[in-house]
Each structure stands twice: as structure tokens, then as C-alpha cells.
């Protein structure tokens, strides 16, 4: 009798175990499906977020020279720079009391924001209020950041020398400003000889043949390489980095910060 009862109990335990195992298996299966769903949803959301992030920083490629869009862009450049003296990579009165050294990379999206006055970038107002009035001159210096992260020193040298060659015709700032206006996504290979040529063709007063010849001038390449190496030695935090140089002393305008007009003005007043 006791043995029968024991057998019944054992059978009941087995049934319960089997039921528990079936339930556990069903729960495991359900969890695996949910895990797959969670992973897939996370990947989709992150990919979309990265795509939106990249989309927000990229811009259209250079418009074809002569098109209304190209003319419109150049008219914006002219309205900012027109009438201000240029020499090489210097913008403004050569006798200005204060010099601002601007370390930049033409492919750097933060330099673009700063130069075009996006997100509070102080360059346009600095040109209007300080450079045009003769108080300050700006000297552009090359520092390979975005281009070297995504591409190479070779490409950096090519694009910077193209801009410096325009500087031989006192049009460096027109070329650089156009570059920033039409800058593409730094992670893509949009900068090539055709892109650089198209930029040059958008500047009506640029002599194209001379510009092309000047690009082979070894002194321009040495200048770009020398400035880049100097910036690295100075351990500058990135681009854009501005240094204000006055008659007696100098100061770093922004260091790691995004340079707004107020920070520039503060530095200019400090060194004047």
C-alpha cells in the first residue's frame, strides 16, 4: 500500500517536473525571441540616430560654377570679404595692432560652423566689427585635424595648397570661405582635384592658369607642412584654435572652446 502511494507520488512528481520543464522551455523560447527583437530594435534606432547625426553635419557638394546657386554662394562670400585687403593667408589691415592666428582645417566641420557663423561661431561678426574697421588682422594657419582623422596628410596638403595658391592672387579667404560654404561630409571622399577646381572656377577674379601653376610651388607646400608641424608641437587642442597677438603679449582665444564673438572680443581687448 505504502509502495503504491510512493509510486503515485513519484509519478506526480515526474509530471510536475515535465510540466515545469515545458514551461521553462517555453519561457526560454519567448525570451530568445524578445532578445532578438530588442537587439534588432536597438540596432535600428542607433543606425537611424547616427544617420540623422551625419545628415545634420553634411552639406551639399560644390555647385557647378556659373549656376545660380554658385553665384548666390559667392555673393555671400563677397558681401563678407569684399573691400578688405588680403595678402597670402592674411585678411585685414597689415598694420592692425592685433593679429588673430586662426589654426584651421578646410574639412573640419567645426571650422565651418565658426567661419560661417553657425551655432554662434564668431568669425563673420569679427570680420565685420574688427577686421573691416582695421583693428584686427586674421592670419590663417593650417592644422590637419578632420582631414587626417578621416583621410591623409597628402589630401590635406593638396586642399590647403589649393587655397594658398588662391592667396598668391590675394584671394585665399574667398577660396577658404567658399570651401567652408560648400564643405561636404568629412567622412566621405568629396575632396578631389575636380572639387578643388570647381571651387576655383566660382571665383570670377581668379586667374585659373596661374592658380594651377602656383599649386606646384614647393614653398606653399612647405608653408602648409611647417604650420601643421608647429601646431602639433604647440599641442593645440584642435581646430579651430585662435591665438590673439597684441603689441606686447598674446593669449589663446578659445583653447578647447568653440570661439564665439564675445570670446574673441575679450581676447582682443586683453592684448590691445
Amino acid at each position, binding site marked *: 500500500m505504502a509502495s503504491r502511494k510512493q509510486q503515485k507520488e513519484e509519478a506526480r512528481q515526474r509530471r510536475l517536473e515535465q510540466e515545469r520543464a515545458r514551461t521553462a522551455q517555453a*519561457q526560454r523560447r*519567448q*525570451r530568445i525571441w*524578445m*532578445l532578438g*527583437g*530588442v*537587439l534588432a*530594435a*536597438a*540596432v535600428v*534606432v*542607433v543606425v537611424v*540616430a*547616427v544617420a*540623422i*547625426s551625419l545628415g*545634420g*553635419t553634411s552639406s551639399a557638394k560644390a555647385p557647378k560654377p556659373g549656376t545660380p546657386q554658385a553665384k548666390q554662394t559667392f555673393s555671400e562670400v563677397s558681401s563678407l570679404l569684399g573691400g578688405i585687403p588680403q595678402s597670402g593667408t592674411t585678411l585685414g589691415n597689415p598694420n592692425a595692432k592685433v593679429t588673430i592666428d586662426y589654426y584651421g582645417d578646410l574639412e573640419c*566641420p*567645426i571650422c565651418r*560652423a565658426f567661419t560661417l557663423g553657425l*551655432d*554662434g561661431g564668431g568669425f563673420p561678426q569679427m570680420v565685420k566689427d574688427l577686421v573691416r574697421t582695421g583693428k584686427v588682422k586674421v592670419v590663417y594657419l593650417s592644422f590637419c*585635424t*578632420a582631414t587626417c*582623422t578621416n583621410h591623409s596628410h597628402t589630401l590635406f596638403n593638396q586642399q590647403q595648397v589649393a587655397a594658398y595658391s588662391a592667396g598668391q592672387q590675394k584671394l585665399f579667404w574667398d577660396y577658404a570661405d567658399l570651401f567652408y560654404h560648400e564643405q561636404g561630409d*568629412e567622412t566621405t571622399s568629396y575632396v578631389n582635384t575636380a572639387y578643388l577646381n570647381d571651387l576655383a572656377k566660382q571665383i570670377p577674379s581668379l586667374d585659373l592658369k596661374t592658380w594651377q601653376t602656383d599649386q606646384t610651388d614647393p614653398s606653399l607646400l612647405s608653408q602648409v607642412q611647417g604650420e601643421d608641424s608647429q601646431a602639433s608641437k604647440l599641442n593645440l*587642442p*584642435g581646430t579651430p584654435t585662435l591665438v590673439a597677438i597684441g603689441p606686447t603679449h598674446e593669449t*589663446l582665444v*578659445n*583653447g*578647447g*572652446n*568653440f570661439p564665439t564673438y564675445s570670446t574673441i572680443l575679450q581676447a582682443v581687448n586683453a592684448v590691445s
Partner: protein
Amino acid sequence: MTTTVSQAGPGTQRTTRRRDGLRVAIAVFGVIGLVIAGYTTYEHYNGFATLLCLGGHHGHSSCEQVQSSLWSKLDGIPVSVLGLVGYFVLLVSLAFRGELFRALGFLVALIGFGFSAYLTYREVFTLKEICEWCVGSAICMTILMVLTGIRFLRGGPEPA
């Protein structure tokens, strides 16, 4: 918080304590993340006037450079605000029991981890600047991804 021995055996009690500890750990890192995101959101709308930053360069803050960069916003929304929402949802998911809420917590942590990894890449390779607050948040999200992952995969009943 733990069940009594009369209701469950010692093994169950140990498991329940472990699960309880896991939820506490998630709550701690969730709150740390929430505080970081709240602080950086406040600083964003306050013009970074009082932003503290250990990573100074020539006496200037690298945090401001990162947080005012083009990568600091997603379609116009500051990423610190997105972080704030993420940590809040994660903590809310912790307050509820059940498979769905465990999955929600894990999903939020996975998204946070993925996007934090992308932003850290931008900090290091594009901006060449490090913002300690962003790194702190990325570390929190990484830990939370592991903890919420364990919570989700373990399943089973949780203490109230």
C-alpha cells in the same frame, strides 16, 4: 524586500537577494547617469556658464568644445536631453515587474550604449577633445547595458 525562509528555501532567498542587488545596482547607475544628463542639460541651456571640466587645455574647457560641437545635437535636440529621457525611462522600467519592462530597460540601455559609443568616437577622432561628463555617461550606459542584460536574460519573478 527579501522573502522569508518559511515561504521559500534558502536557495530561493539567495537568488532573490542577488536579484534585489541587481536592481539596486541598476538604480544607482541610472541615478548617476540621470544626474550627469541633468547637469549637462542645465549647462547647455545656461550657456555653459558654470560648466565644470577636469580636461582643461591651456586653461580652457574641453567639455564646452564637445558640448557645443555639431555632434552635440541630434536634429536640433541636445544629446544631453536625449540622455535625460533615456535614463528616466530606464529607471521607470525598473520600478515595474515583468518581462516587458525588463526588455524595455535593456532596450533603452542598448540604444544608449550604441549612441554613446558613436559620440565617444566623434570626441576622440573628430573633435580630439574629451568631455568627462560625456565619458562618465558612456561608462554608466555600458554598465547599465550589462546589468539590464543580466536582469532580462535571468527572467523569473523579482522582489516587489
